[in-house]
């Protein structure tokens, strides 16, 4: 009798230990469950269109992962996504919700394209860093506008960055249609960048991808191991404590938006130098907005942006073939991502599974007036 009891106790305590681990790693468990649910809903919608969901998903993943060209495309797409994800994540640390990664990415992309077709006499090992620096600076400048407006005029960053996205797009469309347009061209686009400015490929891995990984590492280090990172985190967690500790609130806000903008700008620069090779209207669409999804999926963790960006990149990269193979609109990817985002950012899953042990999402963003 007693041995049976002991066995029961044992198994339940093992179960408890496993459960404790699950609870501990719920920030990974929850996104995974969210993905499973999103893909299941997606499967239902796909089968409603008369296509077998298995075929559709197979086609999506096969084309994104199991061919050299597809892999290259996936990593190419992941590169700027990691950077815009980081851009949103850094701002999150300070309690700012940067919706403007898109505009910052566009300004960065244009600035690096300009550098790429202007300083053509520079050798490649100089021109590439110069062009990326131009991208970073332009992105930082565009991001800093929102930071300054927030710090000194109390304008909420969500609205200002949305407006700055539109304004950036308008100004850039003007620039590439008139002053910076490729001579003799009807399309709205700049001249191509110099050949030595183009980023090389290592097999199927674009070199920009390594840059993105390095950026993620630097940001992770910066946020956890430096004074600046400590300032960012303190302001984000409790700005009154930060002020009391002598942290300059306004400087920190502006600085974080500069960082955020620079990261998005680098993303745009890499996209220009590695993929588009000029600035052209209609490219770069939506990368900044996917950055929001990525940062929320990664729960603001810089390392988390890498798998999150890879996931989004796989879906985006497979979407075109999906349409070719099955006739399903590529927008199904938007839907899948939207459902995932909804499930990850709303406390639905965590509450259903972990109940009172669910990690409570703090109110990360700041309120209206402040």
């Amino acid at each position, binding site marked *: 009798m007693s041995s049976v009891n002991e066995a029961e106790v044992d198994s339940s305590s093992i179960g408890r230990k496993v459960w404790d681990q699950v609870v501990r790693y719920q920030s990974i468990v929850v996104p995974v469950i969210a993905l499973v649910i999103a893909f299941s809903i997606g499967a239902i919608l796909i089968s409603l269109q008369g296509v077998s969901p298995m075929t559709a998903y197979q086609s999506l993943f096969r084309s994104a992962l199991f061919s050299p060209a597809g892999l290259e495309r996936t990593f190419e797409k992941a590169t700027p996504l990691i950077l815009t994800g980081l851009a949103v994540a850094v701002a999150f640390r300070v309690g700012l919700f940067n919706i403007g990664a898109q505009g910052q990415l566009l300004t960065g992309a244009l600035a690096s394209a300009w550098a790429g077709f202007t300083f053509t006499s520079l050798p490649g090992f100089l021109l590439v860093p110069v062009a990326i620096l131009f991208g970073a600076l332009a992105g930082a400048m565009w991001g800093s506008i929102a930071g300054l407006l927030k710090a000194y005029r*109390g304008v909420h960053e969500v609205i200002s960055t949305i407006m700055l996205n539109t304004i950036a797009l308008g100004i850039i469309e003007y620039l590439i249609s008139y002053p910076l347009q490729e001579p003799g061209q009807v399309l709205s686009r700049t001249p191509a960048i110099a050949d030595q400015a183009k980023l090389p490929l290592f097999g199927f891995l674009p070199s920009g991808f390594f840059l993105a990984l390095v950026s993620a590492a630097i940001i992770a280090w910066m946020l956890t191991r430096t004074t600046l990172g400590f300032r960012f985190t303190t302001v984000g967690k409790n700005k009154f404590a930060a002020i009391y500790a002598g942290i300059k609130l306004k400087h920190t806000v502006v600085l974080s938006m500069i960082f955020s903008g620079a990261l998005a700008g680098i993303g745009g620069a890499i996209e220009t130098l590695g993929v588009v090779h000029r600035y052209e209207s209609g490219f770069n669409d939506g990368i900044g907005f996917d950055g929001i999804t990525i940062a929320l999926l990664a729960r603001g963790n810089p390392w988390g942006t890498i798998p999150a960006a890879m996931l989004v990149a796989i879906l985006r990269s497979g979407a075109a073939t999906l349409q070719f193979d099955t006739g399903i609109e590529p927008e199904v990817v938007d839907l899948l991502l939207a459902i995932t985002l909804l499930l990850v950012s709303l406390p639905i899953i965590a509450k259903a599974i972990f109940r009172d042990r669910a990690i409570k999402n703090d109110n990360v963003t700041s309120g209206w007036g402040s």
Partner: protein
Amino acid sequence: MVGVPKMNAVLDFFNAHRKGTIYSLIVLVAAYTFYFIDGVRSTTMLEFAWRFSIPLVLAALTGLIGERSGVVNIGIEGQMLTSAFTGFFVAAFTGSLIAGMFAGVLTGLAMGYFLAFVAVKWQMDQIIAGVVINIVAAGITSFFYVPGQILTQQMPRFAVPLLSDIPLIGPVFFNRGFFGLATIVIVLTLNFMLFRSRWGLRTRASGEYPQAADTAGVDVIKLRIANVSLAGLLAGTAGAYLALEAAGTFERGFTGGRGFTALAILIFGAWYPMRALAAALFFGFATALASQLQADKVVDIPQQFINILPSTLTLLVLAFAAGRVRPPAAVGAPYSKGNA
């Protein structure tokens, strides 16, 4: 004998709303001076301004009701987008504009309830909830979008008797489709309700000092949920207007950031319905002016700059107005009993 108390009432009103009355008079005089100089142009421009303003006013009121009761609504854009989507496609598939209108408006209600549920009941971060609504709305509407649908009917126009005979204002404001007239009624009603009714007092109290409202017996959470949901009706109306009356079509990403401009208008209007109306008209008129100057070849502004004019104005207005006006004190903070 009869004239004296009437005169007093007018004076009282003037004293209570001195600035508003003076500004309105100045604007009216300017408008009619312009009208007598160039009747056609002034009517076209005012017409343009009002058509531009209708969705902005409705969207701003959606935000206003939410914020006055303590809930930030960044998701207006997404609420309008889904409403425009269902409004248009229901109208296109059934062939009935009325059905489309109901579908659009009710979608707004559902989206409003959704925000209320996650942000008030679950106390999720209100701003993240709103942004998520926008992204999800964009995803859903672009997936289910069906190209090549058209509306077979046009929204009818109604001429309000007497009022529509006033020069300039009459044809622009009172000879319109359902939505334009409804907007005027909604602004006036909301203005009255917010400051003259029990509901209004409770709403403002739960936006300013929810603990006090709670102590006085107001169920803050219930009120916030009801208000944010009902406010969704207005976002739904704005979406239905855009799809059924203004454009007569639906495209992906169709609302074009109006939901965010509306938030700026709300702040510019200092959380007052009438001032939000004035702010929206100002935005509309500025855009109308730029387009008119462009069309008359007075100035050669590239089209791209005309397109970004509303956004730039929004930013400027926020930069200069946001510091001067005060939002409801408890806006953005989730409320729960015993968590004061």
